[in-house]
């Protein structure tokens, strides 16, 4: 019998092989790992949007004059608004607002038309359901824009040409002139997906062997801690990169996200980032006793990282202390890098600081996972 301990890579290969066998054996799981990202990417990209459309408007027209109708027509013609009901009774509006049928009530009081013709000004009232303050704010801006252009058309704007001096403002929107929301969200969502899948799978992996008891059998073999962690890490790295590639294909051909930067760089960064995610997962897995604990800790850490990552709400909008926290947040780093590389074509020279931070995190976490993994209980 020839025992061949000179090639540490060989041992790692057997662990990798075994992990893959287990992953592929659980069809339900495999389907989830491969399909879920695709479905989620599509849903997220369409669902995670702050673009305000179809604002449900209820109109209380107590005037019913040609003037009031002209104003209402403006709203029904706008694609931002959707008129869901008319009435001439004020309480009907209240009802629509309280029962959640409308978010906005436009109230045109009696004599609106007469006031407009006779006095040149007619007060109307708008009430908004401001539970969602952000949307309500934008909705009211859209509303005011329509009123303003209506007024301009009525020829009643008097303060124009008030002063000859005028600052001309032009706006240039770089990288995304049409303000396509998806080009921005899709790269971030890709990050989210590989984070969640990679983090949870690796987080549950080692502790699962502890729960079932097979870890004892591994701990009594001469396999080294480093071999063990690398063997556990590699399958998830490969799996996550396959998922990532699916996501990239979707991003490119379905969402038509521009790829300004180099594809090789994108993969380099993704692989580095995965070291962080998988390292964290494995670290959690080595310090917990049950899969439940592992899930909760992973979940807890990721929820905080994701909420403070700038994916859904801009980092610039956060209070200072939260902005400092993002320095310690690898998800924020990766989202920032990948957006810059994909959308603005940044290269390694532009992002090396962020890349270095990610790399450091990855090495530290994997080192910690190796160090914390105990083959012998003290």
């Amino acid at each position, binding site marked *: 019998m020839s025992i061949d301990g000179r090639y540490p890579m060989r041992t790692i290969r057997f662990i990798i092989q075994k992990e893959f066998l287990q992953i592929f054996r*659980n069809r339900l*799981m495999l389907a989830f*790992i491969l399909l879920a990202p695709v*479905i989620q990417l599509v849903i*997220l990209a*369409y669902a*995670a949007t*702050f*673009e305000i459309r*179809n604002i449900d408007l209820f109109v209380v027209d107590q005037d019913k004059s040609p003037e009031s109708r002209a104003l209402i027509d403006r709203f029904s013609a706008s694609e931002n608004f959707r008129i869901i009901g008319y009435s001439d009774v004020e309480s009907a509006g209240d*009802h629509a607002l309280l*029962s*959640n049928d409308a978010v906005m009530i436009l109230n045109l009081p009696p004599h609106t038309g007469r006031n*407009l013709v006779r006095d040149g*000004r*007619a007060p*109307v*009232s*708008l009430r*908004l359901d*401001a539970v969602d*303050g952000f949307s*309500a*704010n934008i909705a009211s801006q859209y*509303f005011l824009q329509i*009123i303003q252009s209506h*007024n301009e058309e009525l020829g*009643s704007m008097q*303060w124009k040409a*008030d002063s*000859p*001096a005028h*600052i*001309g*403002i*032009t*706006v*240039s929107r*770089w990288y*995304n002139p049409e*303000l396509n929301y998806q*080009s*921005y969200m899709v790269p971030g969502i890709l990050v989210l997906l590989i984070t969640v899948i990679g983090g949870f*799978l690796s987080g549950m992996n080692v502790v699962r062997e502890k729960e079932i008891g097979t870890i004892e059998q591994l701990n009594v073999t001469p396999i080294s801690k480093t071999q063990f962690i690398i063997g556990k890490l590699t399958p998830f790295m490969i799996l996550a990169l396959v998922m990532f590639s699916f996501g990239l294909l979707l991003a490119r051909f379905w969402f038509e996200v521009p790829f300004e930067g180099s594809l090789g760089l994108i993969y380099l960064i993704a692989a580095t980032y995965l070291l962080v995610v998988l390292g964290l997962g494995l670290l959690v897995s080595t310090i*917990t006793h049950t*899969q*439940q604990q592992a*899930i*909760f*800790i992973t979940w*807890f850490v990721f929820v*905080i990282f994701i909420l403070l990552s700038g994916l859904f709400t801009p980092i610039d*909008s*956060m*209070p200072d202390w*939260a902005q400092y926290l993002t320095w310690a947040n690898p998800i924020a780093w990766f989202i*920032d890098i990948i*957006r810059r590389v994909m959308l*603005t074509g*940044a290269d390694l020279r532009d992002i090396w600081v962020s890349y270095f931070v990610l790399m450091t995190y990855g090495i530290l976490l994997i080192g910690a996972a190796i160090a914390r993994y105990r083959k012998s209980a003290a």
Partner: protein
Amino acid sequence: MKAFLGFIKKEFLHIFRDRRTLLILFGMPLVQLLLFGYAVRNELNKADIAILDHSRDEITREITDKLLSSGYFQLTAWLKSESEIEVVFQRGIARNVIVFESEFGRKLIRDGSANINIVTDASDPNMAQMLEGYTVNIIRDYQQEWQERNRQVQQSAGGSAGGGASISGIVPEVRMLFNPELRSANLFVPGLIAFILMLVSAFLTSITIAREKEQGTMEVLLASPLNPIQIIIGKVLPYLALSVINVFTILIVALVVFDVPFRGSVLLFSMLSLLFIMAALALGLRISSVVKDQQTAMMISLAGLLLPTILLSGFIFPISNMPAVLQYISHIVPAKWFLIIIRGIMLKGVGLEFLWQETLILFGMVVILMATSIKSFKIRLE
């Protein structure tokens, strides 16, 4: 009955003995609440901007000062040429560059018009729009001040008074109801309650039962004199208790720390929350009846319950903005209806007279889910 009580006690001990898990179960909702209350926002706060001033005169300096003193921006770079804009964006130094044309001030005074170019990194379209809006507003403000000053100068020099411009036409009065200060905490807290309930009731239940299956202890339970219904009740009861405690902790912190209003009936709120918890527990049971191990239970719960609860319920993203298909899908997400209900109760102060439709839908869901999950559970076990 005695065996049943003993079993329930054991289930409670399971959860409460595991300090680490318990800490997370109670700590997580609070941390999330704090993040939503303080950090997750949609307003501009000290955004990084760069300035490219080809003119460097008094007026461009005044405009720059006005931008920087607004509190919305902080200057991170002075640029010398157009070619630096790309670098600034690619390195993430700034998201917004203000470009003053050369001889800006002189042109404004002599010709009555001068140009500013606002260049935004629109790879984040939300941010770009926000930056544009704030910048344009500040520049317009400055323009008005400047005109005002000039008029005063002209007036004191004996020019004719320019008549005060009063706005006419249709004059709207806009009122923000229910949340006049437009605070995001008011929006997120009800959503967070729905989310935490889904997490504790459905996610944990499905995993805890999957765990018994994985470890083979489920068979031991089934061999005991307890019947399957009792086993299910014993398994879900601790999580029900946890959910209730969590709801009230979140609620109290939200009311005390974030001044989130609670305008409706606490009793109605509690009863309908219980209805939602039942829906969530039934979902958890349904998942646990089809899986064999914790990993699969977790993945299904994650993709099938938690993500829809975050994305398709109106928690963070308004449903009305989504494509029609997703709006239809959102109808089958229980959290969507629960959110309408608790936002109605908490913020609008309405009662069942406005919420009966949503309540009926949720109730129907609970009945269907309970029936199918208990049925599938029995089939699997027998």
